C-alpha cells in the first residue's frame, strides 16, 4: 500500500495511505507534484502542513477515514447539482463526531477543511457554526462562542443602527 507522511505544524507525523490522502484536494495535488518531481517512483512523499496543528490534522484524517468510500464532491458542488442541504450528507457518525467539540475546535476544523479542500467536512462544520448563529438570540450566540459583551457606552446600539441602515433600502 502506497503511503504518504503528512506532518502537522507542530511536528507530528501521520502515515496515511495515499488513497485516503487523495480525498483531500490539497494533498492530492501535493502527492501528484511530488510524483512528477521525484525520480524514484517508490519514494514516499512527505507533506508539511504548516497551518494545521496535530490535534486538528488528526481529526481531519479521522473524518476522511470514516468517509473514505463516499463519492468525492467537487469543490463547486451546490444545491443545483442535487446535493442540497449540507445536513443531507451528515450521518449519525458525523453528528457524534462533532458533538463533543468545543466551537473553537470546530472553527479550526473549518480552516483545516478549507485549506486541505475536504468539501464534505467543510460542509458539516460550516453548517454547525451557522446553526449556532441563525435564529439564535444574542445571548445564546455569546454563550455558544464564549463571547463577552465588551461594548462601551452606546457602542452596541450604534452597531445595531449601522446594521439597520445597511439592510434597509
Amino acid at each position, binding site marked *: *500500500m502506497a503511503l504518504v507522511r503528512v506532518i502537522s505544524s507542530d*511536528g507530528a507525523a501521520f502515515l496515511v495511505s495515499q488513497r485516503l490522502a487523495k480525498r483531500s484536494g490539497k494533498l492530492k495535488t501535493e502527492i501528484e507534484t511530488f510524483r512528477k518531481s521525484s525520480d524514484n517512483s517508490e519514494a514516499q512523499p512527505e507533506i508539511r502542513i504548516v497551518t494545521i496543528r496535530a490535534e486538528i490534522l488528526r481529526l481531519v484524517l479521522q473524518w476522511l477515514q470514516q468517509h473514505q468510500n463516499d463519492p468525492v464532491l467537487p469543490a463547486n458542488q451546490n444545491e443545483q447539482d442535487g446535493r442540497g442541504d449540507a445536513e443531507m450528507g451528515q450521518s449519525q457518525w458525523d453528528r*457524534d463526531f462533532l458533538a*463533543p467539540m468545543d*466551537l473553537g475546535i470546530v472553527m479550526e476544523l473549518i480552516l483545516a477543511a*478549507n485549506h486541505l479542500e475536504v468539501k464534505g467536512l467543510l460542509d458539516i462544520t460550516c453548517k454547525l457554526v*451557522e446553526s449556532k448563529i441563525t435564529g439564535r438570540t444574542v445571548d445564546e450566540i455569546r454563550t455558544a*462562542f464564549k463571547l463577552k459583551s465588551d461594548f462601551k457606552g452606546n457602542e452596541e446600539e450604534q452597531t445595531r443602527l*449601522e446594521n439597520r441602515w445597511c439592510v434597509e433600502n
Partner: protein
Amino acid sequence: MRDRSSPRDSVRTADSAVAIENFSVKNKGRIEEPASFETKMKHMEVAAYPHFPSDNIAEVWLNIFDKLEADDKITFSKTCHEWNNWVASRRAYFLFSEILFPVVHMLKQTTNLRKRELLRCRTMCRSWTNDFDRVYPAHPSHLFLENEIDGVEEYEIIKLENHFTSTQRIQRFLEEMHSHPGNPFPGRSIRFQYESPTLEMQGQRRAGILRLMREYYALVSQLLEKYGSHLHMANFDIYPYGSWMEFMETYNYFRHWLLHIPNLKKLVVVEDNCHNSLSDEFFRQNTLPQLPHLETVWIDSTSHAIWNGVLEACVPSNVKRLYLLSSLGAMKHLRIPEIAYFPNLEAFEVRLSGKYLERFLNNLDAAPIPLVRTATVDCWEYELDFGRMFRSLEAFAGSLTDLTVWAYFTEDSLRDAIETEIDIHLPKLERLKLMYYYGPLDPFCKLPALKFLSILYDGFQQWEESSVDFCGFEGRMEESNIWEMIPSLQELHIQSNDLNHAGKSYHREKLQLSPSE
C-alpha cells in the same frame, strides 16, 4: 443506517483516532515540547534585558492577547504549545475573521443566510465588530467585474451597501448618525440613486423636480463631507435634469463628491446626458480629482463627457479593472485612452464599435503590456472583421484566460478564417463565451487550453467548409466531433437566442445532457 463505530471511541483511544486502519500516528514523541521562556527570549535576541517577572503567568499574557489585532492574535496562538493552550478558550472569539468567508460561501449555497443574520455577528462583541468591518469589505470580489465572478464560487458573497434613494432617507441617516465617531458603513459601500416622486409633481413638474434634486444633491454632499473618507465603493446614478445650466450644477456637485471620497477603490457612474459637447467643455475647465486608490472603474453612460472626464483625471494608471459601456453616438467624441496607459489592468469589459476597440487596444508595442486575465468585448457593428478582432486580443496572449465576445462578424471574414485556417494565438484561454454567434467553430479548435465553451447561437448557419459538427447537432452535441476537435474541452454550453428554450450543458466526463441552470 447507523454507523457501528463512534468517533468518541476513537478520540478517547490513547493512540488517537488515526490509528484506525489505513494510517497510524508516527513519532508521537516528536511533538515538540514548548520551548522554555528563556529559549524564546534568546530567539528574540533580548537576552541581555532584565528578567521579566511575569514571563510565565498566563493571565498577564492573556491580558496582552486581548489587546492584540486579529492577525496578531492568530500569530500569538501559533507561537508555541504553551501559548496555544492559554488561548484555547478564546479560539471561537479570535478565529471569527478567519472563518467568516468559508462560512459565508458555504451557507450562501445551502441555507438562506440573510444580510440581517450576517450583520448580527457584528453586534456580539467589539472584537467581532472590528474584525468584520476590517475583513468583510476587503473581500476581493467586491471589486470584481461580473465576468470575473461568473462561475467562480469563492467570489460569491453577499453584498453590503447603504442605499440612498431619497432626500428623507439621507436626512434621517444624518440625524441618527450625528454623533457617530467613526465609520457608519459596515460594507464601506454606498449607492446614490435618486427616485423622484413624479406623480406629485404634475403641476409644477420641472421646477419641483429641480428643487428636490438640489436638496438631494446638497444632502449627498453633507453626507460625503462627513463620512466619505470611510468609503471604498461608491455608486452614483446621475440623471441630470433640465437645461445646460442645471447640468453644470449637477457636475459641480459630482466633482465636489469625488473630493470627499479619497480612499475609494471602486467607482460606478451611471449617467444619461444629452448635452455632450458642453459637458466635455465643463470637465476640461473643472478637472475631476484623482482617486489614487481606485482599482475598479465602471462607467455606463450615454455621454462621452463623463468618460473623458473620469478616465483622464480620476483614474490612476495602476487601475486594475475597467468597465466601459457607451452609446454608439457618444463614441465619436470619445478620447479613448490607449490600454497601455494602464499597465496593471487585469480585466476589462468594453462596449465599443470595432473601430474604437482597435483604438482602445492600440499602441501595445509600448511596454509594459497589461496582464489582462478577463476580457469582455461587446461590439455592435455588423461589419466587424473576425480575424482583426481576435488578432488585436492576441496582445494578451500571455495572460488572457477568460473571454466573452458579443459581436456580429462579417460572413467574408468568417469564411476567410476557415479558408486560411486562422490560428488564434491565445494559448492560456480556458473559458470562451460567444454571444449571438453564427460562425464556424473551426477557429477555436487550436486553442490548446480551452476547457469551457459557451455559445449563444443566433440562426446558426451551415458552413460547408467547416469540419466541426454543430448545425443539426444543437440538441445532441454529445454526438458531435467537437470533443475530438477540441481535446481540452471539458464543458460545452449551448443556448439558442430563443429564450423559450432552455440551454443545455454537456460535460466530457458524462457526455450526457444535464439541465442548464
